[in-house]
């Protein structure tokens, strides 16, 4: 047999890390050039960021950023990029890229706002709101992927939750609609679990199918039934509840403590999920099922039931997230109104290394991109609105391809388990 040469594992890892560092370095240098040439601001101009609104309890002065900021940002980016390229390695790679992207975004904001003013608090509030469906979608993804079930169906579950929220919200009022949305999401979770665990369907196909089915069903009912009976598509919206005292803190107050139930719910669910997955026996068993189902099975964990349970819970979380689109936002269901946010939630999950808090952080970043796109359209930037609308999707691709590289999903992800 001819000799097949393979690198030793250590060499392979080292060369892969070096390559990733070079790619990161290249990206940073590219971004630096971008900031320098495309986002240049005359040193004399200033960007004004409003930090509070006139009615707030404590009024902060506006943040005035001089135009020179962008030049400094470009220099920093170049420095980080060159450093990565030449030395690279380890945690600095992700950190540099994170810092770099933050710098680019800040430079972009300064460039877009130069000579005008921009409400930073409003933007942060919008970020939080727009991050909710993505965070909940990502959390649903975490819950199911931790038991090694790839869940492409999050988009469908979100859509189902939105639809049920609108329909049942019109019939039963806001709370009734919310409860039904959660239950319907759970039902689709159970269907996914059945298709994947009991009928051993390919997990990705099962997810795609549920998405297609929900899209078809909701569109069908919308055009067939809602068009005639408009009262069925007219739910009340949950208003914001301001938490006293905490809600008055400048900048953070309106962002975190003056939101509606969906934001609070998302934050609470992330905390609960983190505690459950990493600090309880049940969570440990679930993660064992995801990493090595055979071993968990021999120790007495019911793999099938665990998968069913967690995928159903994921569905419930996604149903809650879906209800945000209607009960937390416009009160009306439109065909295909989730617009790909379920998939962005999956990306948030990958970005967050399959951890609830990570998924939330990633969702905040995506929410930021989403609300940025809207605000910038208002600011009349030279960039066409269609390209701004693409920003979250491009960000997702970058996340899934660039930053992540070697993130490790649960070991048994995607493989059906057959009990012997």
């Amino acid at each position, binding site marked *: 047999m001819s000799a*097949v040469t393979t690198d030793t594992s250590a060499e392979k890892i080292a060369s892969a890390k070096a390559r990733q560092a070079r790619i990161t370095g290249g990206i940073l240098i590219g971004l630096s050039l971008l900031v320098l040439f495309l986002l240049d601001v005359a040193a004399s101009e200033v960007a004004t960021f409003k930090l509070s609104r006139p009615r707030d309890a404590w009024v902060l002065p506006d943040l005035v950023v001089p135009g020179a900021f962008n030049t400094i940002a470009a220099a920093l980016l170049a420095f980080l990029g060159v450093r990565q390229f030449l030395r690279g390695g380890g945690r600095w790679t992700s950190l540099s890229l994170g810092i770099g992207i933050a710098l680019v975004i800040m430079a972009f904001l300064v460039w877009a706002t130069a000579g005008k003013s921009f409400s930073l608090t409003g933007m942060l509030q919008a970020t939080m709101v727009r991050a909710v469906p993505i965070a909940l979608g990502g959390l649903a993804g975490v819950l199911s992927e931790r038991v090694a079930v790839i869940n*492409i169906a999050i988009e469908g579950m979100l859509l189902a939750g939105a639809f049920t929220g609108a329909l049942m919200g019109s019939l039963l009022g806001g709370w009734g609609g919310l409860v039904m949305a959660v239950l319907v999401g759970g039902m689709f979770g159970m269907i996914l679990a059945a*298709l994947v665990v*009991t*009928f*051993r*369907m*390919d997990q*990705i*196909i*099962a997810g*795609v*199918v549920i998405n*297609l*089915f929900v*899209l*078809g*069903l909701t*569109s*069908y*009912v919308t*055009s*067939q*039934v809602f068009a005639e009976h408009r009262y069925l598509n007219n739910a009340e919206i949950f208003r914001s509840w301001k938490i006293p005292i905490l809600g008055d803190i400048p900048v953070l107050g309106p962002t975190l403590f003056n939101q509606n139930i969906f934001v609070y719910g998302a934050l609470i669910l992330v905390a609960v999920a983190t505690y459950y997955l990493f600090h309880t026996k049940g969570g440990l068993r679930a993660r064992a099922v995801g990493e090595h189902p055979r071993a968990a099975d021999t120790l007495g964990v019911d793999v099938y039931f665990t998968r069913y349970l967690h995928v159903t819970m994921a569905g419930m979380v996604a149903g809650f997230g879906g209800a945000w689109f209607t009960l937390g936002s416009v009160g009306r269901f439109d065909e295909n109104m989730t*617009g*790909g946010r379920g*998939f962005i939630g*999956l*990306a948030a999950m*990958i970005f967050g290394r399959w951890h609830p808090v990570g998924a939330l952080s990633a969702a905040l970043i995506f929410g930021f991109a989403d609300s940025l796109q809207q605000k910038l359209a208002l600011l009349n930037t030279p960039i*066409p609105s*269609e*390209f701004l*609308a*693409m920003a979250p*999707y*491009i960000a*997702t*691709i970058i996340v*899934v*391809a*660039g930053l*992540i*590289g070697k993130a490790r999903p649960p070991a048994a992800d995607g493989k*059906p388990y*057959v009990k012997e």
Partner: protein
Amino acid sequence: MTDGKDLKHVNEDLRKLLARAAFGRGNFEDLFIVPVFAVVAALVLGAVIMLATGVDLPTIGQSFVALAVGSFGSLNAVSETLTAAIPLVLAGLGLGLGFRAGLFNIGAEGQLLLGGTAAVIITFTFPSLPFPVLMLLGLLTGALVGAAYASIAGILKATTGAHEVITTIMLNLISFRLLEYILRQPYIQREGRSDPISKSVPEAGQLPRLLDWFDPNLRLHAGVFVMLLAVVFVWWLLFRSKIGFAFRASGANPDAARYAGMRSGLVIVAAMATAGALAGLAGASQVQGVLGRASPGFSAQMGFDAIALALLGRSHPVGILFAGILFGGLEAGGRQMQVDAGVSIDLIGIIQALIIVFIAAPLLVRAIFPWGFRKETKGGKA
């Protein structure tokens, strides 16, 4: 008189014949019975859903009659079925190729859109070129643009390991916005219109209607030849060429394929590019044969229907051809159903999704229809 024994022999012979005729793996049940039962089950469930949304029984009956009549009840219906099948089969071939190589190309919709748009742009840019040249140029451009767009996802997967399901879905969403932007550019937008619609494909660039001389309403166009050629080409590529073997090997066992010397990165990019080319060709043929121009969302979910198609056809070119004709029939019949019985065409989407469920979960179909299947021997494939 045939008694039970003789019938069994006939049955066995038939099975053996079909097993020989069916390339690749898959026994008689998987290839034939499961799809048939799947379609039947899906139609039944579709009727149940209609009942649940308040459609009364006579109307349901009317809908199914309209479905049948609209798909093959007249020459016009057959023409419509085939016309609808053309882009579906082309895109489905691309998807089936991807599946064979182990890749989930959910991005067919975006590749279709961009391929079709590219075809429109190139044809109205060179209106002076004569008939077959301009038309072929359009088709070629569509295929190339589709291939290029798909290889973005392929390259990302090959170099960074990014999962192609997410990247292709994101590329889809990007392509929708990109199309809106492109259709607003003065060079491309139709003169005198403020809505995003492109200039028309000139006559020399269109795929000619085949049955025009018989009845000007028949829309069947030369794209049907493109479709048939593509079926043959993909069959040849997958089962008779070296690179097709590399695709199938990588799809079946990527590690073994790499050990045997096949460059997995190259295979991924090549497979995605070919799949994208077929999807782009689908878009081009739709634009040059039916629509005559590009507008937002002209793909009308064809890319997603193609996923169902490829699965129904078991990722085999001939299977995909038949599945495409079935789906074309569902679409033509669905339009008739909407007109005759007033039932929204979205129902067809539901039926298609149900078909995939039943196709991809043979265990599910067996659970529902225990008859029609041989008793499963121990150790049957899961």
